[in-house]
C-alpha cells in the first residue's frame, strides 16, 4: 500500500505522557495509513495507547500530552500543526468520530434531529429547512425505525443501539473522508453489536470512507477489519492484512492475545449427576416499580419472572443474557442484596429468603460474591489486608488469625503477601479482581456468585482470572453461579447454562448441548451474534 493513496497518514507519531505516568510515551513511533474504502482496526489492551491515536487524529488530545515527534498528514497538511480554528473547519467535515458510549456523547437535552442539524449549522451549510430534511434522510440511512419520530426523540427515549445509530448519522452528516470509531460497540449488547458492525461496514463501502476502528475485541476485528494494527504499550508490534494477522500472527504478543480469546467450543466436562444440591431457587419473582403518582401511570419492570434453577455441589451454572435481561437482579436476589417479591432461595438446609437479622448475617458466610468492577468493589480507604480480613473478623475470628489467613489467601490467588499493607489503588485491574476473589474466599463459602467477574478485564488478564476461578473451584469444591454476557467465556467455564430474556429463563441446558443444539429462538440469535466466529473456527 503506497502512501499516495492514503487519505490520512500518521508518520512516526510520538506522544509524551505527563511526568509521573507509568511510561514515557503514550504513543511511541506509530505510523499508519488510512485508505479510502478500507477499515483499519487498531487493537490493543487497555493502556496500549489506541485511544490516544484516535484522539490525536481528531485534535482532541489533552493539554498534558506532549506532541514530541512525527506528523499526521491529511490533504498535504500536518494536522499536528493546526490551531483551533483550523481544527474547527476539519472536524466533522473531513474527519468524524463515533464515541464508545452514545448516552454520554449525545446531549441529553436536545432532540436527535436538532443534534444532527447542528452539524450543518456548525459549518454554516444549508438552510434550516434543508438541514432538517437532510437529518431525516440520514436517520433513514442508518436504519432508525420510524425516523420521523426519532427526529423528535430525546436520547434517553432511544435504546443503546438506536443511540449509536444516531451518533453514526451525526458523524456521517457532512460526508467525511475519514471516520474514527473508538470502541463504538463495546457498550452494546451482542446482537445490537452485530447490527452496528454491519451498518458501519455497509456505510463505509457505499461512501468509500476510510475507517479507523478502535477495539479490544478480536472477534470484532475478525468481522470487520481489512487491515489490523496491534499496539502494546504505545508501540506497534504487528500490522498487516486482517487474515495475515489473525491467522498467521508473527509477533508473540499477538499470538498470546489471540490465544487468550476464549473459543466457542465448550471443553469436555466431568458429569456431575447424582450430587447434592447446593442452591435451590424456586419461583423467584421481582418487579421494579417506577413513576406512579397522580398524573402518570406506574411503570413495572419484571426483573425476575418465575425463575427456577438449582446448582449442584461443585457445579458452575452460567447465567447469560443481554443487558436488562435481569441476570444481575437474579444474582442480587440470590445474594439477598435485594428482597424478592416471591419465591425462595435455599442454601442446602436453610431457607435464605426467610431468615433475618443476626441469623442472616451468619448465614451470609455460606454464599459470597465476586463483583464486576474491580475499581469500584474495593473500598479505596481501606488496606487490602483489612478488606480481606474484615469478613472473618465480623464472624468472630480474632484479628491476628484473620490477617494471617488473608496473607495465605493472597498467595492462593497469586498475589504477594506484601500486598496486605497496601491500598487498592496501587494495583491493576486484574490484581484487584484477585483481591476481590480472595475476599470472597475468606469466609470459606460453599457457593460463589460471580457477577460479570471478568467483563471489565483485558482479554489476557481475563484468561488468567478464569483459570484461577476454575482451579479454585476444583480445589475447594465450590459451586458457582457465573453471570456473564459473553458466551465465549460461558462456554469455557460453565457446566450448565441458563439463558435469560426479559426476566425469565428461556433455556437451561448442559453447555455442550446448548452450543450444539440450541432450542429457543433467542438462544440461537445470541449464539449467531457472537463476533468473530468464522475466523476463530478457521484459526482453531
Amino acid at each position, binding site marked *: 500500500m503506497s502512501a499516495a493513496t492514503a487519505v490520512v497518514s500518521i508518520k512516526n507519531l510520538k506522544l509524551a505522557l505527563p511526568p509521573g505516568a507509568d511510561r514515557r510515551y503514550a504513543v511511541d513511533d506509530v505510523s499508519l495509513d488510512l485508505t479510502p474504502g478500507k477499515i483499519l482496526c487498531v487493537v490493543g489492551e487497555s493502556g496500549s495507547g489506541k485511544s490516544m491515536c484516535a484522539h490525536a487524529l481528531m485534535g482532541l488530545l489533552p*493539554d498534558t500530552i506532549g506532541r514530541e515527534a512525527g506528523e499526521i498528514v491529511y490533504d498535504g497538511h500536518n494536522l499536528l500543526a493546526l490551531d483551533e480554528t483550523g481544527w474547527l473547519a476539519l472536524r466533522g467535515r473531513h474527519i468524524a468520530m463515533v464515541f464508545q458510549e452514545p448516552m454520554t456523547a449525545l446531549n441529553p437535552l436536545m432532540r436527535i434531529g436538532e443534534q444532527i442539524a447542528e452539524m450543518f449549522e456548525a459549518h454554516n451549510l444549508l438552510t434550516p429547512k434543508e438541514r432538517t430534511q437532510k437529518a431525516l434522510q440520514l436517520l433513514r440511512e442508518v436504519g432508525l425505525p420510524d425516523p420521523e419520530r426519532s427526529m423528535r426523540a430525546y436520547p434517553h427515549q432511544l435504546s443503546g443501539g438506536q443511540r449509536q445509530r444516531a451518533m453514526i448519522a451525526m458523524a456521517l452528516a457532512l460526508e467525511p473522508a475519514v471516520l474514527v470509531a473508538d470502541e463504538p460497540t463495546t457498550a452494546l449488547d451482542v446482537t445490537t453489536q452485530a447490527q452496528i458492525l454491519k451498518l458501519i461496514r455497509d456505510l463505509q463501502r457505499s461512501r468509500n470512507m476510510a475507517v479507523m476502528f478502535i477495539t479490544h475485541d478480536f472477534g470484532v476485528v475478525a468481522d470487520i477489519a481489512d487491515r489490523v494494527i496491534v499496539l502494546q504499550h504505545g508501540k506497534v508490534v504487528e500490522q498487516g492484512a486482517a487474515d495475515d494477522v489473525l491467522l498467521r500472527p508473527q509477533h508473540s504478543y499477538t499470538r498470546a492475545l489471540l490465544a487468550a480469546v476464549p473459543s466457542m467450543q465448550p471443553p469436555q466436562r466431568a458429569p456431575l449427576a447424582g450430587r447434592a444440591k447446593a442452591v435451590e431457587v424456586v419461583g423467584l419473582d421481582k418487579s421494579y416499580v417506577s413513576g406512579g403518582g397522580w398524573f402518570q401511570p406506574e411503570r413495572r419492570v419484571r426483573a425476575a419472572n418465575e425463575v427456577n434453577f438449582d446448582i449442584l455441589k461443585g457445579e458452575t451454572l452460567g447465567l447469560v443474557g443481554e443487558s436488562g435481561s435481569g441476570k444481575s437482579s437474579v444474582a442480587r436476589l440470590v445474594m439477598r442484596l435485594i428482597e424478592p417479591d416471591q419465591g425462595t432461595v435455599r442454601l442446602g438446609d436453610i431457607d435464605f429468603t426467610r431468615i433475618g437479622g443476626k441469623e442472616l448475617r451468619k448465614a451470609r*458466610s455460606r454464599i459470597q460474591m465476586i*463483583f464486576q468492577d474491580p475499581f469500584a468493589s474495593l*473500598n479505596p*480507604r481501606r488496606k487490602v489486608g483489612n478488606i480481606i480480613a*474484615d469478613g472473618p473478623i465480623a464472624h468472630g475470628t480474632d484479628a491476628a488469625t484473620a490477617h494471617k489467613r488473608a496473607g495465605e489467601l493472597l498467595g492462593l490467588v497469586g498475589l504477594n503477601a506484601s500486598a496486605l499493607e497496601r491500598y487498592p489503588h496501587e494495583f491493576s485491574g486484574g490484581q484487584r479482581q484477585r483481591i476481590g476473589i480472595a475476599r470472597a474466599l475468606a*469466609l470459606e463459602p460453599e457457593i460463589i456468585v460471580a457477577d460479570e467477574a471478568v467483563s471489565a478485564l483485558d482479554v489476557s488478564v481475563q484468561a488468567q482470572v478464569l483459570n484461577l476461578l476454575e482451579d479454585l473451584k476444583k480445589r475447594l469444591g465450590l459451586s458457582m453461579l457465573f453471570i456473564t454476557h459473553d458466551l465465549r467465556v460461558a462456554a469455557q467455564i460453565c457446566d450448565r447454562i441458563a439463558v435469560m430474556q426479559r426476566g425469565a429463563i428461556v433455556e437451561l441446558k448442559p453447555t455442550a448441548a446448548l452450543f450444539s443444539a440450541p432450542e429457543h429462538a433467542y438462544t440461537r440469535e445470541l449464539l449467531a451474534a457472537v463476533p468473530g466466529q468464522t475466523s476463530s473456527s478457521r484459526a482453531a
Partner: protein
Amino acid sequence: MMNFWRTMLRNPGGVIGLMILILAVAVAVFGPLLFPTSPWRMVQRPFLPPFTAPGLPLGTDALGRDVLAGIVHGARVSLLVGLVSTMAALAVGIPVGAMAGYFGGRIGDALMRFTEFFQTVPSFALAIVLVAILQPSIVSIVLAIAIVSWPPVARLVRGEVLSLRTREYVQAAVVTGQSHSWIIWREILPNALSPVIVLASLMVATAILLESSLSFLGLGDPNLMSWGYMVGAGRTVIRQAWWITVFPGIAILISVLALNLIGEGLNDALNPRLNKEGR
C-alpha cells in the same frame, strides 16, 4: 497524605488563609499573656484615636478601654464559638444524614422532614429567639449556632451516603455479613468526608459571623469581650470615633476571609478530579 499537602500548598489562596488562621489561633492562645488584664478595664481617657498614646496603638473606645486588648481577647471568643458550634453541628448533622441516606424509606423520610423543619425557619431569627430564651451566655450562643447550622450538613451527608450506598464495596461488606453501623462508619463515611470537611471550614466562618451578629445586637455573653460586641458598642459613635468599629470589623473580615480561602484550598486538594491541570 503527602499528596494532599502538596496540592493544598500549591493553592496560594489556601496557604494565605492557613497562615492567617494560624496567626489568629496564636493570638487567641497567647494574646491574653500579652494583655493579662481584663479587656473591660479602663486604661486611658475615652475616644483616644489610634497611634496617639504609647502602648495603645489602636486607641480607646467610648469608655476608655483598650481596643487592641479587646480584639485580642475577642479572637478567643470568636474562634472558640466558631469551632465548637461547628463541631456540635457536625455531631448532629453527620449521624442524621448518614442514617437518612443509609436506611432510606420511612426512616429517611422522617429524618429529612425533621431536618427541613429546621431549614424552613430563617436561621438568624431562630438563633436570636433561642439565645433570648436561654439567656445570653457562651453556651447558649454555641448551642443556638449549632442548632441553626446542622441541617445543611445532614443534607450533604445524606446525598453522599445515598450515592455511596450502592457502590460495590458496600455491597461486598453487606454480603460478608457486616452490621449496619460497621458499614456506615467504616465503609461509607470515610469516603463521604471530603465535602463535609470543606463545608465545615466554611461553617466555622459562618459561625463567627453569626456570633458577631448576635453580639452586635446585644445578645452576646455579657462577661466576654467579642468582636461583634465591640462593633455594636461603637456603632453609635462611628462618626466621631471610627476606630472603635473599624478595627474589630477588620478582624472579623480577615478571619472569615481566611476560613473561606482554606475552604477553597481544601476543596481543590480533596477533589482530585478538579485539581488536575489540563482539560
